[in-house]
């Protein structure tokens, strides 16, 4: 009886798709309303991010960037969902989710400074509703329930969205976040980017559940699994989740089926230890850029020329942003001491003096 119930539940979580690997529309009814400009902008962002990812990897190898978690493969999942947001919505990202906050308004050079571990990278512009990439897996998810409830109580017409990975869906905080948001009927959207691996551990070893989307059931919230390599499907699912949240219909968990082509991070991870080249090949065929490019080309909305323009622009911007990051003042200990409290207590006052003397030498 209970096995049967489980099977019935699991059956409901089929992967939602609009574009297949050939860029053909397979779900006409679900096509979102997007102008030609919107469609081109989405492509532009994905191409831009792919170039940025390549550059970031090489800058990291040259020692010119700090911590970096590659994103190639996940562009549709990241940018399709971000494109569905209003500019005043809140984003609570995980460490990999830098593209979303950059397209939400974080200047690129600040993303680079953050990567280098310079605190000027975290002093983001006023009015930008983001948090900084969370390192503690799961912490952002419970905070999202809080932000969403806050937005609701303050009468704002905005949502809070957060991201984690398939591994993150194992954390207690993941369940607590969904459960709280559900209990308070808070306007939250939880995205789990299922790129199949948590560093080296495959998703099959994370959980006995067939999908992560079905985990919404226990929290009593909506859950959907989406083809994460299909930017239109991700956009559309997020847009609907956002509208439902604002209409008071509760939070949604969205599982995007995706893949990261690169290593987990640039800090010594070697994917060949845990990933087969067959699997890599299988997912390269699903590439979100290729698929969407085919779709747009058929509509006469994308050309090689357009693509090259974006590539050049991205390279130009990155160069400029690196220059800006390089010119940031050297990080001082006194700056850090100064930000510990509004008023410095005795111990920090003394240490401030000590380090002021050292730094003036």
């Amino acid at each position, binding site marked *: 009886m209970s096995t049967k119930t489980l099977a019935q539940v699991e059956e409901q979580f089929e992967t939602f798709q609009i574009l297949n690997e050939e860029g053909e529309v397979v779900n006409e009814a679900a096509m979102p309303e997007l102008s030609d400009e919107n469609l081109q902008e989405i492509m532009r962002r994905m191409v831009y991010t792919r170039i940025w990812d390549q550059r970031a990897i090489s800058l990291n190898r040259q020692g010119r960037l*700090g*911590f970096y978690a590659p994103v190639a493969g996940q562009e549709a999942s990241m940018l399709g969902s971000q494109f569905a947001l209003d500019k005043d919505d809140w984003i609570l990202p995980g*460490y990999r989710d830098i593209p979303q906050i950059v397209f939400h308004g974080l200047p690129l050079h600040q993303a680079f400074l953050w990567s*280098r*571990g*310079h*605190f000027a990278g*975290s002093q983001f512009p006023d009015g930008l509703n983001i948090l900084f990439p969370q*390192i*503690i*897996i*799961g912490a952002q998810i419970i905070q999202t329930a809080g932000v969403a409830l806050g937005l609701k109580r303050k009468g704002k017409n905005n949502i809070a969205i957060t991201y984690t990975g398939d*591994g*993150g869906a*194992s*954390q*207690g905080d993941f369940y607590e976040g969904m459960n709280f948001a559900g209990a308070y009927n808070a306007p939250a959207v939880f995205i789990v980017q299922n790129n199949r691996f*948590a*560093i*080296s*551990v495959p998703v099959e*070893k*994370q*959980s006995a559940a067939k999908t992560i989307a079905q985990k919404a059931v226990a929290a009593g919230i909506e859950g959907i699994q989406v083809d994460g390599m299909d930017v239109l499907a991700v956009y559309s699912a997020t847009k609907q989740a956002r509208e439902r949240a604002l209409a008071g219909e509760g939070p949604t968990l969205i599982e995007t089926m995706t893949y990261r082509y690169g290593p987990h991070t640039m*800090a*010594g*991870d070697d994917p060949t*230890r*845990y990933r087969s080249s067959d699997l890599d090949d299988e997912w390269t065929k699903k590439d979100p850029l290729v698929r969407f490019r085919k779709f747009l080309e058929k509509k006469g909305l994308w050309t090689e020329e357009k693509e090259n323009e974006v590539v050049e622009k991205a390279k130009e911007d990155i160069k400029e942003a690196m220059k800006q990051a390089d010119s940031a003042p*050297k*990080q*001082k*200990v006194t*700056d*850090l*001491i100064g*930000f*510990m409290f509004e008023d410095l207590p005795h*111990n*920090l006052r003394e*240490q401030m003096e*000590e*380090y002021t003397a050292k*730094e003036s030498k």
Partner: protein
Amino acid sequence: MAQMTMIQAITDAMRNELKNNEDVLVFGEDVGQNGGVFRATEGLQKEFGEERVFDTPLAESGIGGLAIGLGLTGFRPVMEIQFFGFLFEVFDSVAGQMNRMRYRTGGKLTSPITVRSPFGGGVKTPEMHADSLEGLVAQTPGLKVVIPSTPYDAKGLLISAIRDNDPVVFLEHMKLYRSFRAEVPEEEYTIPLGKADIKREGKDLTIVTYGAMVHSSLKAAEELEKEGIDVEVIDLMTISPLDIDTIIASVEKTNRAIVVQEAQKQAGIAANVVAEITERSILSLEAPVLRVAAPDTIYPFAAAEDAWLPDYKGIIETAKKVINF
């Protein structure tokens, strides 16, 4: 004897104990096929199988609870917290549950668990990876807290930790993992927990320290020797419980002491060492016991690490203050 890095010595200790006792289990995030993010468990799953060395889902609280449960059913868990900054995720299991198992059951049940975790600064990790949180666990009754500073010590102490019938938090400084090699016997040996090691003998000043700061202190001692100051360096190795006898005997010989830690001044265990010294040997002191530590901020962003972390120059400066008091 073999030349080993600290991380190889740690792997060797686990291999030894996995061989020695089939109840020993090694688990955590990425410790299996990947051999750990630092390769501390490299090859162990291949050698001992997935039943003995295994990956867990990504949930530290789950890992801690699993260790407690396995401990209750006769196993000897060696659990890994991938970076000690993630301690907070498993703090209830470590500092609220496993440490009181023996106490609350009047000795009927125990937690023979080893909690292994990398920590420590100077490697420019992102936030919440390097933080020196040893003070939090060292202040928790019912836990032993071990921090080795050399490959030789690491192997002997880890074998002792795994064989200990009480929970031991075993902290591995990331910067020491591969910074040098040293001779480590291939055969098994143990180093007792709760005992400090005098890494350098001297008669003018005692430096009490642990972890990576042992090396900075030894370097400072070398420099001070050139100026005719003869420094004794005590490596605590176990920071809880403290080896009071070794500390006090040294201070009573040198009459001067400083305590060096990488942690913030208000964190770590230096304050506790100072308190023990003043309570027990105030009359033998020629000068106040000073501390060398990091400032009381949140652990810094990577770009500020070098300026923020205590170094041998700061140790020399403080040592001279005490000598010239």
